[in-house]
């Protein structure tokens, strides 16, 4: 891999963000809206439940972690969609750029945009609702890492789907995070789900994060072994997503999809 080529992919995104407030604002706006909405819901529940249990780290914290995961996925896919929308595939893939360099550039972009969102989340949640991520203790780092890796895997998987099925399939990608969330047990323990949904949740790395988060908030020991399973799954999914993207790319080269991608868009 060549740093110059990876840098080119990242630089392209920097140029786009630098010249476009419309691209920068959504990084913060949705995060801010979620924090306000779930922050007040948590505060209201604290007032009516009188259970001696704080909903802020459980509910608002879950929202923040889930938003972080979603933003990473969208950071990767958005960077990819920029090339879809600007009909840039032929220029990129008829060059010495490798798929590994291209994907690395997309992932770095995803990391950068999601970290900006995360910073805003942390400041808003702390100043407005007194939630500090430090409440999760040493488990915070693996929580973020598992969500981060899963977001990257989903982002690369989404990019592969759009490469394979064309620009219109981007509408299949946006709801992926929402589709996963009921199975991931973001707001409730996985044990409340029916058996078949629990089976699905066992292959979703975020479910281990949210189970661990709830255990920590409830004062119980974080199940590190379960978290390790989630981490292992997340690493495996990143590898699988890269393999899937490479397979789709080879198919696209064999069948002429990349050439037609441009041709279709000018017809």
């Amino acid at each position, binding site marked *: 891999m060549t740093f110059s080529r990876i840098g080119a992919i990242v630089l*392209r995104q920097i140029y786009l963000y630098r010249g476009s407030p419309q691209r920068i604002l959504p990084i913060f706006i949705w995060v801010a809206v979620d924090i306000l909405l779930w922050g007040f819901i948590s505060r209201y529940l604290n007032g009516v439940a009188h259970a001696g249990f704080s909903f802020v780290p459980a509910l608002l914290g879950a929202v923040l972690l889930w938003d972080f995961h979603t933003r990473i996925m969208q950071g990767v896919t958005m960077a990819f969609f920029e090339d879809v929308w600007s009909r840039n595939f032929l220029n990129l893939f008829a060059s010495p750029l490798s798929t590994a360099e291209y994907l690395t550039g997309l992932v770095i972009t995803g990391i950068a945009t999601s970290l900006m969102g995360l910073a805003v989340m942390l400041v808003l949640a702390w100043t407005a609702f007194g939630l500090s991520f430090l409440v999760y203790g040493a488990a915070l780092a693996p929580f973020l890492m598992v969500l981060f890796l899963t977001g990257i895997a989903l982002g690369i998987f989404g990019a592969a789907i759009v490469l394979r099925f064309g620009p219109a399939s981007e509408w299949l990608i946006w709801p992926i995070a929402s589709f996963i969330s009921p199975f991931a047990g973001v707001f409730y323990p996985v044990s409340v789900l029916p058996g078949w949904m629990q089976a699905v949740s066992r292959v979703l790395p975020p479910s281990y994060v949210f189970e661990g988060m709830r255990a920590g908030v409830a004062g119980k020991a974080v199940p590190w072994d379960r978290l390790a399973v989630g981490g292992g799954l997340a690493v495996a999914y990143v590898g699988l997503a890269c393999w899937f993207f490479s397979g789709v790319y080879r198919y696209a080269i064999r069948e*002429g999809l990349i050439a037609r991608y*441009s041709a279709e868009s000018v017809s």
Partner: protein
Amino acid sequence: MTPGRAILSVERLCKSYGALKAVDGVSLRVAPGEIVGLVGPNGAGKTTTINMILGVLAPTAGRIEIDGADLATDRRHALSKTNFAAVYAPLPGNLTIEQNLRVFGMIYAVPNLTARIKEILDLFDLRKFRKTRAGLLSSGEQTRLSLAKAVLNRPRLLMLDEPTASIDPANARDIRAGIAEFVDSGHSGVLWTSHNMYEVEAVCDRVLFLSHGKIVLEGDPKTLPGEHGATSLDDLFVAVAHENPGGEKAA
């Protein structure tokens, strides 16, 4: 064919989609300092051939070598020696001219990139638009930008797919002159597709007629019409398009 080491060597290239043979056994060479025209009616297989040479379409059979590098086994090296411009592959309209050239300069690992961008902006008379987004440029300016990107890395092989389509004659003449100047150094060769036979005759050292995925005629564009009883390259084009339904080689 020009003797000596070719910049582009294509041997028995084929591309099939099921029973349809889009390209059927095409062999061609481009030598340093040579501009080779690839012409033929719509659907003859020109763009399919170009796409295979660009590495974005895998051949069913055959071999492509660019500056000694086999495209199938040494893709990165082969593609680093080439570049292209095509009317259907515009540069991102949401980046400025300068930004586009910087991004693609980094992708092609162009040394002394800042200086090279300045040089290219002057060469294609784009300096005054360097801060303008590509999407806001006129067709002629966008074509000049595509060509600027195409020669940015001083490619050994330059591929141009209808580079002057949809631009006015004055701009087209300037572009032809610019490319001819680029090739005159003898460092590079050009594969040029066009439907403008006047342009092909004016610019190309050699022309290949493609019909139904096969090369059916080859020769000097200035003498080829006379050799085949046609009054002009235009007439020869029409004759080839109408008289080779099976794509048999006429000469």
